[in-house]
């Protein structure tokens, strides 16, 4: 988007309030909508998706595992620790039969890949999957998890995955802020108090989702449109976006507001979600992003599903993923 169509959108570095606007937002959010040299920015941030892990306290307790936040903050701070914890869950004699620790390998991969210096693209934003440190380490964690069989192998957003939120086919899932709303929608009132949010994200900050508002240069009423976007993404409105809709602000001043930073969630066992996600959003570092990230990630997570459900070997799954990625990149 930024690369191909930047000249079709108003550059927010050149609007009258440019410096005041820029100061409001998380720098990483601002940079995601900017050209690599930072000279051109196509939109102001609306929501973001800082990620943690949402988990079922009741299932973990039933498996005889600790769920207090001090232990989780330590055990789940790294992916290796998280996977180890998952192995203990699978080994438990008292865990519910048919239940697995994590929903899918994709929960690990799509978060871990963005914790590297590079994800799917090199510094200039060109896809370079094979040489990326993020892809390499994410693939290693994921295949560790699949060979230990700690995942339920459900395709994310498929019907069986949706049903599993209430059936308890998995105990944990990668959980950007908006996923909290999704879980409540799928698990319903019966899930209230059974879920909680991990105090840390394994491997550090990671982001899933988020939007921007831009103004096309073709607009006949640019000044009014710019004022509207500034108003929509202002502190007050982003606080409201969180309190009414559960979407995490990209406006730092909104994130620091007590209504956001001090928020707890009764549904998620009164977890201090404002403080947890605020901390994760603050430590975010975003590697270069590219135009085909979604398709590339999809190609890889599809093959991860094959490893989980069909016993495909990681090597041939990796080759098939690269093959499918080549169909996109050409």
């Amino acid at each position, binding site marked *: 988007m930024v690369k191909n169509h930047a000249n079709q959108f108003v550059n927010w570095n050149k609007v009258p309030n440019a410096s005041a606007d820029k100061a409001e937002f998380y720098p990483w959010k601002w940079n995601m909508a900017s050209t690599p040299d930072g000279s051109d920015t196509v939109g102001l941030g609306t929501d973001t998706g800082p990620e943690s892990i949402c988990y079922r306290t009741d299932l973990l307790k039933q498996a005889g595992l600790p769920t207090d936040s001090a232990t989780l903050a330590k055990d789940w701070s790294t992916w290796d620790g998280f996977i180890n914890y998952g192995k203990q869950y699978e080994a438990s004699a008292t865990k519910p039969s048919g239940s697995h620790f994590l929903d899918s390998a994709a929960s690990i991969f799509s978060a871990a890949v963005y914790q590297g210096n590079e994800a799917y693209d090199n510094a200039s934003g060109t896809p370079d999957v094979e040489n990326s440190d993020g892809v390499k380490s994410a693939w290693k964690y994921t295949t560790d998890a699949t060979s230990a069989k700690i995942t339920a192998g459900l395709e994310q957003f*498929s019907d069986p995955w949706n049903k599993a939120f209430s059936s308890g086919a998995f105990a944990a899932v990668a959980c950007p802020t908006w996923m909290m709303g999704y879980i409540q929608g799928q698990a319903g009132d019966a899930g209230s108090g059974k879920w909680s949010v991990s105090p840390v994200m394994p491997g550090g900050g990671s982001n899933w989702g988020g939007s921007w508002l831009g103004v096309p240069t073709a607009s006949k009423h640019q000044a009014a449109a710019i004022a509207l976007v500034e108003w929509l993404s202002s502190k007050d409105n982003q606080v409201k976006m969180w309190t009414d809709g559960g979407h995490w602000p990209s406006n730092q001043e909104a994130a620091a507001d007590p209504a956001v930073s001090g928020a707890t969630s009764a549904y998620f066992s009164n977890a201090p979600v404002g403080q947890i996600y605020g901390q994760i959003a603050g430590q975010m570092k975003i590697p270069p992003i590219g135009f085909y990230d979604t*398709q590339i990630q999809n190609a890889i997570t599809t093959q991860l599903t094959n490893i989980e*459900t069909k016993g495909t070997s990681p090597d041939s799954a990796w080759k098939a993923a690269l093959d499918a990625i080549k169909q996109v990149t050409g």
Partner: protein
Amino acid sequence: MVTISAEPATGEISRRRLRRHRPTSRGSRIAYVYILPFFVVFAAFSVYPWLDTAWVSLHDVRLSTYHQQTWIGLDNYKNLLTNHFFWHAFFNTLTIGIISAVPQLCVALWIAHLLNHRLRGRTFFRVAILLPYATSLAAATVIFLELFNPRTGIIDWALHLVHLPRVDWQGSKWPSQVAIASIVMWRWTGYNALIYLAGLQAVDRELYAAAAVDGAGKWAQFRHVTLPGLRPTIIFTIVVSTIGSAQLFGEPLLYHNGMPDGGTSGQYQTLGLLMYQQGWTNDRLGLASATAWTMFVIILLAVVVNLLIARRRERRAR
């Protein structure tokens, strides 16, 4: 048609002779005006897209940067024909087409044969068989997805009940193709049966009476009266279902939650899905256009082969 009925009946012969010499008589000129709206729409929404698709297929074009087109000649076609994704989708389309169309047409023929006889509640059955056709494809596929759900579906539950192994109707190749073919069959069998039934109305009832007098049973009547009488109708339905099968899209798309990959290993990705995936998911409009044209040629070939076989059989029958 309209011009003929508008003409006075007298002077028919001389008029015809006249027309031969002056092909642009007033009457036929009006005929062109009458058919003009169709051809204007046809040119705008069929001919122009065909030609534009052909033009795009000769370029490297990304959907996101549509106006940057680089001429690459036949490279998209070369890429396609040496690409295992294409051949994979081609054979999937072929196999799903066969396992859905062949049983579908046979069953439709048999249903039509039965409904052609005097039967209590005949009108009810005739309407009932058309109901699946009137059902929304999306709604039907969602229901079939539930039936074929490997964890909670009623089909695997029934298999389990009679001590048969559970089947992965989503992940395994043949079961998933059979499941999709069953949606197609469910939807189109009644429609084809109705077309056959219409064709049967044109078969002389006395032929059945004569056959019965000669001692022909139901099956013999079906073979020697129904089948020959329906030959043109059967050829029509075969051509139409060949075209339909080659374009199969909605069922396999919805069968994987609306994703065009046709399952995690493309086990039921059809040519229609591949084309969609290339153009809209993978951003490669040039390659997708090449797939579209290749599909067009494949369908034309399939239809021509159908007609050739039919004509040869007809000649042999004479």
